[in-house]
């Protein structure tokens, strides 16, 4: 522990938070001193975002104690957090798109109610000043909807700086920044530190942490596994802390050799979603893991393959035949299936019964002539409920009544029902409890054994390492490397982080 002389700005003790049956946080300890950059590190799903929401008052913790500048806070609300000087820069800024930058900053910082004359020159001057301080070359008179995502983030940072925040949380602020913007951002962070602000810095990029942070706390499975002085750590040590357990034993082994090439991509790109020049071959019976940082273009690639954002360059071949994928309907007909990442919004329709969710992609097959056939639907649903061991009150129960893991199984069942040749899984076990997780892993392995080509996107590194026959690593919208199965965590991480941190013009 860093024996910081000053009283900590923020102390968290034994913070716990459950969502339904899922334990998102199970006793997190964390403290932040004035004038330090404290990195928070962990895999996706380790509980970082939940922890942030607790600190910003968005979530009320089930247990634990929050102390801000020596004062114990019972009930932290967003307003109270703001008053206490806590500011958070999210990846997706919550700005007013139709209003100018100056006004966005003004609306955040000016207090004094509705009966106030707006001093536009002062607003503009302050915005200009703050933007200069965070090193952003943004016209205060530009509308936010004209700005790129990193520019919007800089506006958020300017707001935090302007609010005189003492605790600034940055949630992967560099995920979409260019190298120059990033360098500027670092300068801003260092200035904040000099000014005595405590910065909680969340990032996947290890070299950033070494460049910027004073201390680092690693979260794993909702608990803090240690706080260390960055100077005493090296990359390998951090990766080991993050990954933690031995991975090999937990995952079902591959049982069959891969077969013929089913899907092949040649220089596939999609300008609208930032996918560039992806070439890969997917074989029957193999699990192809797709690793990479958040925002590296993995989900975007999946959306291209499912016809949601069609490719505008390159060639896609299915069983050797060139195909075009312009809509999900087309993709389904050709035998592609996509289990999306956000199952509550895209994967399952929460208000509809499980059975109806399961048959949604196979209307044409099980309801020939467009008439619903309850018997066929029920039979199919019961089959999959049994086959995938979905825990539910019955096939009539609404999707929203299930736990995360069981919702994921329903989403999976919907796509297995289409009898696909290629199955794309996007973060199949995110937010799923440990038991269901290994069940889903066994299902994936079994599907591959039955001859399916599986493309598995995952930010859970041990999962990628343990499940994949081959591992593709994406970076900046392109496929950076294809590694053999059994590669170690360090190699994959290194490929995902890349030698170069910037990704060129945004």
């Amino acid at each position, binding site marked *: 522990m860093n024996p910081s002389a000053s009283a900590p700005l923020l102390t968290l003790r034994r913070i716990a938070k459950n969502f339904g049956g899922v334990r998102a946080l199970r006793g997190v300890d964390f403290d932040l001193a004035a004038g330090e950059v404290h990195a928070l590190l962990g895999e996706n799903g380790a509980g970082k975002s939940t922890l942030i929401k607790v600190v910003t008052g968005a979530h*009320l913790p089930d247990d634990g104690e929050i102390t801000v500048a020596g004062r114990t806070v019972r*009930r932290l609300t967003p307003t109270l957090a703001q008053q206490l000087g806590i500011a958070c820069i999210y990846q997706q800024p919550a700005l007013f798109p139709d209003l100018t930058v100056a006004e966005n900053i003004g609306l955040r910082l000016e207090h004094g109610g509705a009966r106030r004359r707006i001093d536009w020159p002062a607003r503009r001057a302050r915005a200009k000043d703050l933007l200069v301080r965070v090193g952003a070359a943004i016209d205060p008179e530009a509308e936010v909807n004209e700005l790129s995502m990193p520019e919007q983030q800089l506006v958020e940072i300017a707001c935090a700086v302007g609010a005189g925040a003492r605790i600034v949380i940055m949630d992967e602020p560099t995920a979409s920044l260019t190298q120059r913007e990033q360098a500027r951002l670092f300068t801003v962070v260092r200035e904040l530190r000099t000014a005595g602000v405590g910065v909680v810095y969340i990032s996947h990029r290890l070299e950033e942490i070494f460049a910027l942070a004073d201390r680092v706390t690693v979260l794993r499975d909702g608990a803090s596994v240690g706080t260390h002085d960055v100077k005493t750590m090296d990359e390998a040590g951090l990766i080991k802390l993050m990954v933690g357990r031995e991975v090999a034993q937990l995952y079902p082994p591959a049982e069959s050799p891969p077969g013929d090439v089913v899907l092949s991509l040649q220089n596939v790109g999609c300008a609208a979603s930032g996918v560039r020049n992806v070439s890969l071959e997917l074989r029957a019976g193999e699990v192809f893991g797709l690793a990479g940082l958040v925002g590296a273009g993995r989900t975007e690639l999946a959306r291209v393959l499912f016809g*949601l954002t069609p490719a505008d360059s390159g060639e896609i071949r299915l069983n050797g035949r060139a195909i075009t994928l312009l*809509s*999900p*309907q087309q*993709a*389904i007909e050709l035998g592609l299936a*996509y289990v*999306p990442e956000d199952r509550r*919004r*895209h*994967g*399952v*329709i*929460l*208000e*509809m*019964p499980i*059975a*109806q969710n399961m048959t*949604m*992609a196979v*209307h*044409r097959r099980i*309801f020939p002539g*467009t*008439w*619903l056939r*309850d018997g066929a*639907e*029920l039979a199919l649903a019961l089959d999959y409920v049994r086959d995938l061991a979905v825990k539910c009150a*019955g*096939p*009539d129960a609404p999707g929203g009544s299930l736990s995360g893991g069981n919702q994921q199984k329903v989403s999976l069942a*919907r796509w297995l029902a289409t009898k696909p040749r290629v199955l794309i899984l996007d973060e199949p076990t995110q937010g799923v409890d440990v038991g269901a997780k290994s069940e889903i892993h066994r299902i994936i392995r079994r599907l591959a054994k039955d001859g399916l080509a599986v493309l598995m996107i995952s930010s859970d590194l041990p999962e990628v390492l343990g499940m994949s026959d081959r591992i593709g690593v994406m970076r900046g919208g392109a496929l950076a490397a294809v590694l053999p199965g059994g590669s170690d965590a360090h190699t994959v991480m290194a490929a995902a982080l890349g030698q170069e941190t910037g990704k060129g013009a945004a």
Partner: protein
Amino acid sequence: MSAPANQPGWKAVFLRYEMLLFAVLVAEWLLFYYFGTTTNRRGVVVGFGTMDRQFDILRHSCEIGLLALALTPVIITAGIDLSVGSLLGLCAILFGKLWFDGGLPIPVAAGLTLVIGALAGGLNAGLITGLRLPPLIVTLGTYSLFRGLAEAITHGAITYTDFPASFLFVGQERWLGLPVQAWLFALVAVAVWLLVHRTVFGRSFRAIGFSPEGARYAGLPVERRVALVYVLAGLISALAAIIYTARLGQAKADAGTGYELFAITAVVLGGTSIFGGKGSVTGTLLGVALIAVLKSGLATLPVVIRLNAAEEISGLLTGALLLVALTGSVLPKILSGLRGRRQAG
């Protein structure tokens, strides 16, 4: 609504919203029967209790009912169509014009009118799905456009009358004991019921209403399905126009003015959620019956007869009823929200 797999308990049968509506309908009918039926000096029963009045209720139900049937799928997809009443007026005028000025035989004119209705619905559909414009403002625009065209075509004055008796038969006579249009209405009701509850179309309407993004990720053709409900709404409005013309024996530009309110009220009253997803055609039919009995029944109450204000009172009550139904539909959510907040605090 959903396919019952295991046998439903008695609560599920008797406490269903539709049963509640039915009970209210029966109570309403009995109330009007009691207060609205009198015997005149010659000892003849007049007012609500007569068979003629029942047929009158049925006839009135048909036009509003058709519009409500048209709106049910629209609202299930979380859309809205304010233009159905105006389209009824435009189609009535065009039907009259095709027959009178165009010299076309009635069946041909009717067929063309249906095509025009579908095209007008297609205009709504194209703007909503093609340009992704909000249904509210699009149909508010066509609400004005369609009515305006009807007024422009007739110069606000021309009324088409003198339709042949063979056509008026549809709106004024009975067949197999019931008003002819009631059979047509029943036919459409069954068709819409089947569409919404028994086909994959209805299934996708629901999915789209609950979550358009979820439906897109499930591979449902969201745009085509949404377009379908608006085209269908146009088609059914045109049919309602023909029946309206046949009942009154004349086609005027103000035909169906304000009917959209009655139709939307019937749909919302029938338990279809204005936020989309949930909804049933049976509920809509009960909602229509409730409103038709109200409209017709009010006209038989002595106090209303004295005021000579049946139209006004029924409009007033329908508007109020819609507000009550809307409030009722969100009340459980708000109450549970309050309860949740208290638990958190």
